[in-house]
């Protein structure tokens, strides 16, 4: 089974981004979009994308600056620049000229098959994580009873960072969603129900 290629588009022109997304989705690719170079850097560092397509002219961090930052950090995936003028740079795998032509992108993508480095967590290590997860669940319940927001935030932060590494991606995703939600709103304990259920599910499936 082959997985659909994942593409990140960083483009501040909403209409152009929508057009590119539509065309690429029709080709069977999984596509995400961000509107600036800063988000492009932080998203790319998740290593979820096989190809990152950066518009050159963007507010804040432009496409070349974003590419420079990623390469400095050792980012090894395919970086493409979308520009009205041809740009030659060792930071880039290729430069695509505007106006955007789908066949140009497909030709470049065809040359850049990513080799993934898969890794399976040993049973012993997974067991160690499950034990820690049970402890975090207890701490979370105690923090909820005590109304201890700081501890709740810390535990959710820990779960976001660790769970997906051990195959519990749903827990990480829910913790991420809660963190984003709590950036601008106070914590409501009812929001923790799904997270708690997901942890129970993980714990039950391990026993």
């Amino acid at each position: 089974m082959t997985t659909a290629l994942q593409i990140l588009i960083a483009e501040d022109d909403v209409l152009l981004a929508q057009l590119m997304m539509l065309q690429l989705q029709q080709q069977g690719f999984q596509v995400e979009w961000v509107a600036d170079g800063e988000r492009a850097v932080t998203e790319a560092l998740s290593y979820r994308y096989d190809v990152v397509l950066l518009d050159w002219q963007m507010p804040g961090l432009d496409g070349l600056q974003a590419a420079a930052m990623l390469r400095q950090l050792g980012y090894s995936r395919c970086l493409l620049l979308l520009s009205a003028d041809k740009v030659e740079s060792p930071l880039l795998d290729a430069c695509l000229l505007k106006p955007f032509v789908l066949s140009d992108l497909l030709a470049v993508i065809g040359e850049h098959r990513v080799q993934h480095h898969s890794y399976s967590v040993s049973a012993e290590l997974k067991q160690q994580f499950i034990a820690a997860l049970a402890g975090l669940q207890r701490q979370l319940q105690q923090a909820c009873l005590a109304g201890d927001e700081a501890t709740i935030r810390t535990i959710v932060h820990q779960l976001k960072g660790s769970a997906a590494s051990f195959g519990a991606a749903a827990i990480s995703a829910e913790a991420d969603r809660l963190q984003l939600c709590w950036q601008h709103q106070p914590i409501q304990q009812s929001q923790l129900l799904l997270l708690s259920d997901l942890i129970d599910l993980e714990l039950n499936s391990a026993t």
Partner: protein
Amino acid sequence: MPREWKILLVDDQDYTRQLLRNLLMSVAPEPKLVQRRYSFLQASTAAQATYAFNLYRPDLVFLDIDLPDGNGLELLHQLKEHRKDCFIVMVSGVSTLDNVKSAISEGAASFIVKPFNGDKIFAVMQLFDKFIEEQSLAKKML
């Protein structure tokens, strides 16, 4: 016998350090990487990390930003003051651009956003190979 390269893993969660160690061991034999022998040191706090860093002089450090007794970015600053040439990789569950920029400006070689996977570790180890090669070239030029 080839020298042993020391890697210091700094994270307050034991299972996270073990995971990182296992990932590094799993990625290290990749033919595209320079083959080296590695040994591992571990620290769960900033204080332990400072102690291990000064005592064992690791070649490579994976440093979590959130530590129970301090901020990893402040520790990065201190460690780089002691040894500018140490290859330090910041690790965080939160990839804000501010975090990434601060890490770079304080001298971090790379930045890994949790959760860990083989691809992220492989990219860092490729960068480490390049860094060692550049260092060795620089020494020859002197």
